[in-house]
């Protein structure tokens, strides 16, 4: 068990190292950030030289990389070229907004997806089942940016029920600001959370349905029926625990995926999280922030998956015994 964990961790570490090299080399080939900082029309060669030295871009590439790597290990990604703040702190300051959005989206998606999946699996091959299955294909086919725009069109422009962007009023709690504690913040959360949740509802529903169909065909379900247990009790006390492992996996993975996919939803809803920060930084060639954001999302995702693996043991005694 320990060796597998160590193996997994070193693999993840190698991945991150390889990614940092590729990303670092790539972002250097894209463009010179100096031209985004100085005014191209009025800058003298002297200005450009001074800006280059100030950013440390006059040193050889490999030296810049090792400097960068050494700093990364100590949580220092350099200073943002645009905001003049430490890049990692900038990412961290945007994290609560993204986390809050993803958490609310998952709170919508997980229960409704599981419920729809149980319902469809229970009534396999009925009209209800086919409706849920087909709508899930549609839900998974909608590009998230277009879905977000439709939600804005219907929920904000046409009806005016919800605001079309921004975070609304925030309240500080534990030294971080949150939107979900105020009415205005909740209203601002509704549309982007729904945009993130809809594809996940479909995914979770499909997985739950196929699991339910499989478990319901097994002997113990028939035994429970013979014992006279109510269908609801069988569904929630016997079927659901037996399909919980794949569901938890997908919820964990999708939560990590939301951190990555939030890029789209956050840009559209003008939600000041790490996704919007990433896109803005790519467009402004703000190299330290791009690297810090990508590294953070990758590390968060790898860490989340490891957590899910450990959580298996809690849910499924069989994995505990074999381990």
């Amino acid at each position, binding site marked *: 068990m320990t060796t597998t964990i160590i193996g997994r961790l070193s693999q*993840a570490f190698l991945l991150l190292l390889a990614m940092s090299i590729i*990303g670092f080399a790539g972002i250097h080939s894209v463009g010179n950030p100096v031209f985004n900082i100085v005014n191209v029309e009025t800058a003298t060669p002297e200005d450009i030289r001074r800006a280059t030295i100030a950013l440390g871009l006059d040193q050889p590439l490999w030296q810049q990389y090792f400097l960068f790597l050494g700093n990364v290990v100590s949580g220092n990604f350099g200073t943002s070229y645009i905001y003049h703040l430490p890049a990692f702190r900038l990412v961290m300051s945007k994290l609560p907004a993204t986390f809050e959005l993803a958490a609310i989206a998952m709170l919508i998606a997980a229960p409704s997806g599981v419920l729809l999946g149980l319902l469809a699996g229970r009534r396999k091959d009925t009209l209800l089942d086919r409706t849920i299955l087909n709508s899930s*294909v549609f839900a998974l*086919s909608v590009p998230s940016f277009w879905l977000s*725009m439709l939600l804005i069109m219907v929920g904000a422009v046409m009806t005016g029920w919800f605001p079309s962007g921004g975070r609304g009023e925030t309240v500080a709690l534990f030294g971080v600001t949150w939107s979900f504690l105020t009415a205005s913040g909740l209203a601002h959360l509704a549309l982007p959370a729904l945009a993130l949740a809809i594809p996940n509802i479909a995914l979770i529903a499909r*997985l739950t349905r*196929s699991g339910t169909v499989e478990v319901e065909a097994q002997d113990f379900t028939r035994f429970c029926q013979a014992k006279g247990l109510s269908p609801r009790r069988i569904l929630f006390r016997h079927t659901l625990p037996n399909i919980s492992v794949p569901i938890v996996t997908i919820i964990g993975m999708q939560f990590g995926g939301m951190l*990555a996919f939030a890029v789209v939803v956050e840009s559209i809803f003008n939600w000041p999280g790490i996704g919007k920060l990433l896109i803005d930084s790519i467009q402004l060639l703000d190299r330290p922030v791009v690297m810090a954001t990508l590294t953070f999302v990758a590390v968060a995702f790898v860490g989340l998956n490891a957590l899910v693996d450990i959580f298996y043991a809690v849910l499924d005694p069989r994995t505990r015994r074999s381990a």
Partner: protein
Amino acid sequence: MKTETLWAFWKRPATYRVTLPKLMAVAYVLLAILASVIAPQNPYDPLQIFAWEASSPPGTVSGGGYLYLLGTDGLGRDILSTVFYGLRISLFVAVTSTVLAALIGMSLGVIAAYLGRWADALIMRIVDLQLSLPTMLVALIAIVTLGPGVDRIILALVIVQWAAYARVTRGVAMSEASKAYLDAARLLRLPPWRIIFRHLLPNSIAPAITLIPIELGHAVALEATLSFLGLGVPIDKPSLGSAVANGFQYLMTGQYWISLFPGLALFGLIASINFVGEDVRRRFDPRSL
């Protein structure tokens, strides 16, 4: 997953059912190929565009005499024509990248299975690591590294997709590699590349082929998303994704048609591909989702 040789799949009696998604997928391909013939306007030709007719609502009659069936965008381009031309770029990027990714992924999967040892370890570690990250993250890293442009986005999509084919193909090839006909090929002293590509590959790729429609749907969606974010195809020749992006700023003023119709076309395209993919997958592996 049921293993089945490509040949057996080909020879299987046709149980073909014409369904709406299949018809739609064929129609989309035809529209993309015939875009320049059937589109009322060439949206890339400034001479055919009348800037003073910008943002006309659907149904407006153009000064040039024809009807803007779906309205015009902020630059005066006919939306219907933009959709046809955008479809062409979206499909071109998605199909090219999917085919390339399938070829590369299948080949590397077979090579990993046949050579074993360090080649296997190297290829499969990359596959494992890549498949453990969300596709959107891999795509973003790739596109940030490669920069914008049609060729770059195809490359980025190939990087995102090849790993899935490699993993599936390698699994099948491992079990094929121990079979007698491969021992026979080895005893004949055939060169390794010939054994890999003429004997092992054709017998190992059937399950991976069922991935193609699903991955094609992903490719269309991913290209559209990257283009929407301004990281994909250049803005002067918009794909469906960038056509939707063009309309975003007009959404707030109620000019819904600029982004609604290209988005609808995109949604229909992805949905029809996904339904076909679902059908294919169900035929081969009834137990999957």
